[in-house]
């Protein structure tokens, strides 16, 4: 029988997290800090709207681009929160999670050989999606000393004649790093000068602590070369509803809508109705969750300090990215031993790119009680490691 698989798919590695997931699932009494989704339930009024629309029989396809009502609310929301101005009719596509936006954008924009710059550590799907779209992923290694921000110099060093898109994954999973306005301005300048498009994944935009998130598409000259991805998963704790959106110039959105139309048809209808409710009446829920995350973030930073685990202070998402290089072992080894000895699951930093080696991703999408127990165990583990090393 002939090989059923394409050569392309065989070059793609399964996510590094998968391996870890398999070990964790076998164990009992594990405290996991390895989850990339909010611990909160979707706020009740949003769930209630979902139930209501099901009861009313709103179970049919919507238009390909998504409910008009929802796109209008998205446009209003982006304007009010991030000073982004998009036409709801031509410039917004409602997708199945932010992830679909990544895939569809790359497929609509790349020709074979086009290079896509991906700052790492980052979320695991950009790289394989670039490969699947026949592009060439080029990673940029972000540095802890820069708080894992992308600098102008790093960007310039990675650009070639073939560079077409820069992925901007901020606020960042897994580091929690954010880009401030001045940082973005420096990047924008390069993108304009070198004629590069930006795919800005802002799924964590509501989860920043201290200063509000700045959208690169709102900077002068960037609107026409930026695709902004966002969604409901993180900000409204709606991961399972699978709903996101991508906004950008009409010429690109139009073509993306074709792919979306043929591959997906439309995003889930009752998720879309629930999302309308979220955008209209969900601001206070977001604020409450943000405050809770911020408290946990402070708690973890304090706990790391007490146990002598260096960690740059992250101001976004719900992850901290402590450095474990002092123990002279790999992230994988540290995470595996922590799991075996103390039954605490964290994700090795290298699952998010080679430069994440020496770090751990610890999620604080957990209750404070959980975090306390976990930090107790982690502290004990670190003590043991130090004793053995003596």
């Amino acid at each position, binding site marked *: 029988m002939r090989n059923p698989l394409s050569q392309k798919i065989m070059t793609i590695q399964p*996510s590094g*997290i998968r391996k*870890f*997931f398999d070990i*964790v*699932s076998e164990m009992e009494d*594990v405290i*996991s800090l*390895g*989850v*990339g*989704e909010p*611990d909160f339930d979707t706020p009740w009024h949003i769930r209630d709207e979902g139930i209501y629309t099901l009861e009313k029989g709103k179970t049919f396809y919507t238009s390909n681009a998504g409910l008009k009502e929802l796109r209008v609310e998205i446009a209003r929301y982006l304007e009010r929160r991030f000073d982004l101005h998009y036409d709801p009719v031509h410039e917004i596509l409602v997708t199945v999670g932010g992830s679909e936006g990544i895939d569809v954008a790359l497929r609509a924009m790349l020709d074979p050989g086009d290079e896509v710059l991906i700052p790492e550590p980052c*979320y*695991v*799907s950009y790289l394989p999606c670039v490969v699947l779209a026949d592009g060439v992923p080029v990673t940029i290694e972000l540095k802890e000393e820069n708080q894992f921000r992308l600098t102008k110099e790093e960007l310039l060093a990675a650009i070639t004649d073939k560079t077409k898109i820069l992925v901007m994954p901020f606020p960042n*999973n897994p580091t929690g790093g954010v880009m401030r306005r001045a940082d973005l301005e420096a990047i924008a300048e390069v993108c304009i000068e070198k004629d590069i498009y930006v795919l800005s994944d802002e799924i964590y935009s509501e989860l920043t602590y201290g200063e509000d998130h700045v959208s690169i598409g709102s900077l002068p000259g960037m609107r026409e070369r930026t695709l902004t991805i966002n969604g409901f998963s993180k900000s409204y704790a709606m991961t399972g509803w699978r709903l996101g959106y991508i906004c950008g110039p009409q010429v690109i959105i139009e073509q993306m809508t074709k792919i979306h139309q043929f591959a997906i048809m439309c995003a889930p209808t009752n998720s879309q109705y629930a999302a309308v409710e979220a955008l209209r009446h969900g601001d206070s829920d977001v604020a409450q969750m943000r*405050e809770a995350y911020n*408290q*946990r973030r*402070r*708690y973890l930073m*304090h706990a790391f300090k007490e146990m002598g685990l260096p960690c740059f202070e992250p101001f976004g998402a719900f992850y901290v990215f402590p450095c474990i290089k002092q123990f002279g072992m790999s992230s994988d080894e540290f995470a595996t031993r922590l799991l075996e000895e103390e039954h605490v*699951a964290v*994700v090795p930093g290298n*699952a*998010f790119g080679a430069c994440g080696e020496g770090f751990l991703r610890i999620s604080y999408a957990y209750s*404070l009680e959980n975090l306390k127990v976990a930090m107790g165990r982690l502290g004990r583990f670190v003590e043991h490691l130090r004793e053995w090393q003596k």
Partner: protein
Amino acid sequence: MREQILTFLEKNSKIDLKELAVLLGSSEEVIANEVAQMEKEQVICGYHTLIDWEKTSSEKVTALIEVRVTPQRGQGFDSIAERIYNYPEVQSVYLISGGYDLLVILEGKSLRDVSSFVSDKLSTLDTVLSTATHFILKKYKDYGTILGKKSKDERMLVTP
């Protein structure tokens, strides 16, 4: 800062102030001072424990009593409210807008306890025009907490 402290204490008054200082990005001293000041100003009136008495062996009956009264000249509802809230078995007294005036929450050991309070004490007050007593059959949620429901983390253990 005060509002943040109160929001937290309202949910968990047992929290260690040192820990609260970490969570709110402040110092223990500042938090302790604020709390002391709010206790003094009676912004904080007490620290209570939420108990699901259903799960204990003690017998308790809780009743909501709607009370219609004649307000008194010069004192409005305050003096009649005081007459009622001074009874230790009365848990809460609220002045209410709408079809009646005072809502009285009463805790007793038995139905008879409650009914004798209503007939002997409450109804006999001069200013009380009428009462309607409702017994609580089951508490689902109290003070923002859903009783008896333990939430389980349904998420997958590790996700990107």
